[in-house]
């Protein structure tokens, strides 16, 4: 299919989708009219706060709240001793005497104002016994290491049993013995903060109308939040009502700390019988919220001298911190580990390791940005070892229709990656620049690099990708729609509105999106995995289709005709073949209402079942995949280590573009996040304690750091998603870091195996290479292969990674062929 917007804008023939429509929530957000949870004030509302652990691992030996309770203005002090059940799911604790990381809480306080609250928290008399702790994967896996979840068999040896996922295809071991060359590499990534503008906030209000408690909050999954709150209070889910507020950013992160914050506020509300607002400070949010999983990526590749990949083996280990509820991420990681390549033999194992450090959770891409960085760099290195051009190498091994991916799923639908590569390369003059930049000696060196990738759309075999959709009309012709999925800044309300407009063929201006209230629409799962437009909107579309049939029947009655003779087009009911026979939508709706016809429909959508065997790591993992290629252009200052990202060109397979402006917005934000992941971000954690607690030290890119971003949207024919749409929220960010690192390599010749790499770490690498070149006793290439090891600079590339770059290639050593 052609490039979207390239003179083919209406090629798919849609009326209200496949084109721009202003975001339905834009005006409220830019004028400040939108309300976030922290904006709410209820009568008699108290403020809640939490006492966080001063240690990465400790046991509370005594706690006395008498003094705290006596402080004027303090209305309740609760500790772990007051809980009916400390532990919720993912082993998270609402409060606990065993504090497993800095974000764990032992006590909570409700007070009439912020000052009393601070005094109350400070007056809790508490003593701790600090416990031996583990912080790194290596420490956690060492023999006799302290256990993060002592006595829990599911966490034996600090490995979470449920986190083990695998992908298998062919026989990698046997293939290694037959290959011309074996190449091993290790890459590493650091934890990354979501940096959403709104910190976690909730207002919990005792509410007999709701059952027991209503909680106002902005969650990535209000139904999970309901579960946290119901568990904390020990009541059925039906007694808890979550009313979703405007979300000030999530990127996957408004889950664990958000749920705990809502639960803690609810516990205090229950204890005081008053509404309680709890808002995390930025520091608390950074300390206690989840981060992008830091991964250790160990690869072994077997390849023949003709460049054909024969076997791929990967052990991918994530440091999950103290808690974990993201086993399914490892399913996604296992399927995508080898990248968008056809490799006959694959063996992938993924697992998570507990440590007493910041917890990891879902973050935009859900392992893909880490894995794409690792595997795309890996393939560049493999091509280099073979003396091949890496783009030619990638094209040679690329997945094609009919091929099987790493878990043996046959690629049934169109793969437009070759077209995307050709057009993105042409638009960026990629090949010429890449060749021209190879041999620069200037202080400032240009570089161009690329990454190509694919992504399974929706949840796939991870869990049921089911959701509820609701549509109803009023007697005046206005329409209300709802979904069990939430607007968290991605543009869901707007794209769902356009989809209903298209289905009913009425102008989107007449449609209002309600938003989640868990008392009004069933649990539709998490708004994540870039599933909403692709899969979640299907139920809304089904509901609109059913409602349209009811309205057509009413219109037919009014025309004295059969429903099959009536059509609804652009807000008008028309009698087929009779040009003047037209009734406005509103008129039909009025009659529809006053004749008692069904005016509202709730429908459920569940995609066709996939046949995936988790234990074997084989089968049909996702209904379809989207494809993409990112080209990054940089300039490296070799005397300061500064990398200026000058231009990023993003080519994505959208299937069907619903609203290109929203897609562009997703891509701009995705590039910014990818740039941070490559060059700036990376949380400094020392002995389990976070050193970057606010944005003065934790660097995210600002407007001045942003490159020029070029968006190239491609459409394809694929009926798996709503109106053929494919995912973009996560594809927008997943290839960016890999492309930037590839460009830095083009500019400098340096192979980078740990990200983020900031200017301090990069200059350290450059200087070490120069020093090595100056002292001739160093081995050729040794400097390039040394890890980015500026040890006092954790934000760039913190830890020594002694195994990184160990080229364990028996044939190389024996034959010396390089």
């Amino acid at each position, binding site marked *: 299919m052609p490039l979207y917007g390239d003179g083919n804008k209406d090629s798919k023939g849609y009326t209200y989708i496949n084109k721009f429509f202003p975001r339905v929530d834009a005006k409220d957000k830019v004028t400040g009219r939108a309300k976030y949870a922290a904006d709410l004030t209820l009568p008699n509302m108290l403020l809640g706060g939490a006492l966080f652990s001063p240690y990465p691992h400790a046991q509370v030996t005594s706690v006395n709240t008498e003094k705290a309770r006596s402080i004027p203005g303090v209305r309740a002090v609760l500790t772990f001793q007051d809980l009916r059940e400390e532990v919720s799911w993912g082993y998270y604790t609402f409060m606990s005497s065993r504090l497993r990381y800095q974000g764990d809480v032992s006590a909570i306080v409700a007070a009439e104002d912020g*000052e009393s609250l601070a005094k109350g928290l400070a007056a809790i008399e508490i003593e701790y016994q600090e416990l031996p702790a583990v912080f790194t994967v290596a420490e956690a896996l060492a023999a006799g290491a302290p256990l993060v979840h002592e006595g829990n068999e599911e966490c034996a040896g600090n490995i979470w049993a449920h986190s083990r996922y695998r992908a298998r295809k062919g026989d990698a071991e046997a293939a290694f013995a037959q290959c011309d060359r074996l190449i091993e590499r290790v890459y590493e990534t650091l934890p990354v903060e979501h940096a959403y503008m709104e910190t976690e906030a909730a207002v919990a209000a005792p509410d007999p109308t709701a059952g027991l408690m209503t909680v106002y909050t902005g969650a990535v999954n209000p139904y999970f939040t309901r579960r946290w709150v119901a568990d904390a209070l020990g009541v059925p889910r039906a007694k808890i009502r979550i009313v979703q507020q405007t979300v000030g950013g999530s990127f996957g992160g408004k889950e664990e700390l958000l749920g705990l914050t809502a639960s803690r506020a609810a516990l205090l509300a229950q204890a005081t019988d008053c509404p309680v607002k709890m808002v995390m400070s930025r520091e608390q949010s950074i300390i206690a919220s989840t981060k992008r999983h830091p991964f250790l990526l160990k690869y072994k590749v077997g390849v023949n001298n003709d460049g054909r990949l024969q076997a791929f083996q990967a052990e991918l280990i994530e440091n999950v911190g103290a808690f974990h509820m993201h086993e399914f991420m490892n399913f996604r990681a296992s399927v995508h580990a080898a990248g968008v390549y056809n490799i006959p033999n694959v063996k992938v194992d993924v697992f998570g390791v507990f440590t007493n450090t910041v917890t990891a959770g879902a973050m935009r891409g859900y392992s893909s940005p880490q894995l794409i960085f690792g595997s795309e760099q890996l393939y560049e290195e493999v091509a280099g070892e073979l003396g091949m051009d890496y783009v030619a190498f990638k094209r040679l091994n690329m997945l094609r229709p009919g091929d099987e991916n790493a878990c043996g799923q046959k690629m049934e639908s169109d793969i437009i990656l070759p077209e995307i590569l050709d057009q993105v390369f042409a638009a960026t003059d990629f090949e010429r620049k890449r060749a021209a930049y190879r041999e620069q000696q200037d202080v400032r060196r240009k570089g161009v690099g690329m990454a190509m990738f694919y992504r399974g759309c929706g949840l796939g075999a991870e869990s049921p990708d089911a959701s509820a959709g609701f549509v109803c009309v009023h007697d005046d012709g206005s329409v209300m729609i709802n979904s069990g999925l939430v607007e968290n800044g991605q543009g869901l309300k707007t794209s769902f509105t356009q989809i209903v407009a298209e289905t009913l063929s009425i102008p989107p201006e007449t449609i209002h999106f309600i938003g989640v209230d868990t008392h009004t629409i069933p649990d539709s799962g998490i708004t994540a995995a870039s599933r909403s437009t692709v899969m979640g909107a299907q139920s809304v579309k089904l509901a609109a289709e059913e409602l349209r049939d009811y309205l057509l029947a009413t219109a037919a009655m009014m025309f004295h005709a059969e429903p099959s003779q009536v059509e609804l087009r652009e807000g008008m009911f028309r009698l087929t073949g009779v040009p003047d026979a037209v009734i406005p939508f509103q008129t039909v709706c009025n009659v529809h209402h006053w004749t008692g016809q069904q005016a509202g429909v709730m429908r459920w959508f569940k995609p066709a079942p996939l046949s995936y065997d988790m234990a074997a790591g084989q089968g049909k993992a996702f209904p379809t995949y989207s494809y993409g290629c990112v080209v990054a252009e940089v300039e490296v200052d070799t*005397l*300061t*280590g*500064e990398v200026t990202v000058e231009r990023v060109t993003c080519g994505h397979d959208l299937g069907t573009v619903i609203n290109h402006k929203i897609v562009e917005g997703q891509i701009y934000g995705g590039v910014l996040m990818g740039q941070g992941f490559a060059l*700036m971000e990376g949380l*400094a954690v020392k002995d389990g304690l976070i*050193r*970057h607690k606010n*944005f*003065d*030290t934790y*660097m*995210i*890119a*600002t*407007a*001045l*750091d942003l490159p020029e971003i070029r968006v190239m949207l491609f459409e394809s024919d694929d009926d798996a998603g709503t109106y053929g749409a494919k995912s973009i929220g996560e594809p927008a960010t997943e290839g960016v870091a890999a492309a930037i690192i590839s460009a830095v390599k083009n500019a400098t010749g340096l192979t980078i195996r740990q990200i983020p790499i*900031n*200017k*301090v770490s990069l*200059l*350290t690498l450059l*200087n070490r290479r120069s020093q090595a070149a100056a002292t001739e006793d160093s081995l050729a290439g040794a400097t390039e292969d040394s890890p980015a090891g*500026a*040890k*006092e*600079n954790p*934000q760039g590339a913190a830890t020594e990674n002694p195994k990184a770059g160990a080229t364990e290639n028996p044939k190389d050593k024996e034959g010396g062929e390089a």
Partner: protein
Amino acid sequence: MSGFAFQSAGSLEEALAVLARTEGETRIVAGGTNVVPAIRDGRQPPALLLDISRLDGLRGLREEKGKLWIGALTTLAELAASPLLAERAPALYQAANSFADPNTRGRATVAGNITNASPGADMAPPLLVLEAEVFLTGPAGHRSLPLREYLTGPFRAALTRDEIVTHLTISPQVHSAFIKIGLRRAMAISVATVAVALEKATDGAVTACRIAFGALGPTALRAPQAESVFLGRQPDSALFAAAAAAIAGDIQPRDGLRGTREYRLSAAGAILERAFSLAYYKEA
């Protein structure tokens, strides 16, 4: 934010009287860009915050007897937008423009930046090379001292508890420049900064040279050894290499959250060459 009293002075005399009366339990606040974050971070607040932001006599930027007079309350936004500064003292102009972001520049004051005396204070290196003199007033009357004596240590300035900075003067130098390295391009605390001011003869030989670094020692500091490398010479690559080598004797870089000693030392040489070249080739 609580636990302290707040008073806004209507005149310099009133402010001085309050300082005299409260014997050092008072902290002066103007733009608040250092004081407010410190209180928010949970550091012990002072008993009284004395706001001097209404003392309009302490604002402004003008030429006076061949020098530039800069009021203590002049904001970095005003410096960053000053054509006079751009023309006569590019180093200070460039430093003001590299500082934080437009919002913070709109509140932060020049005297606040140097009196806070952060080792990485962005205004300090350009003011050092422009031979800034700091003017103070207190119960004993007026006094002044060179900036290099005013900066006594990390977060320590030679301001007694009952004094207020009224203004600074600088010697304008068109051949001056400033370069900053931060971990991003806005809202970045410096990892290393350098300012250069020089004079040259008609044959191009350097006749006067002042170099100062920031974030590379306990305070912003002059670099006499690097300065002496350039004196009487015309810059070339060998000279820059010699200057970069000489820096090691001038600065005391340390490992920190934003950068390593190794990085700072290496990058300082690079930005010195660039700032020197900017200053040297600046058209008068």
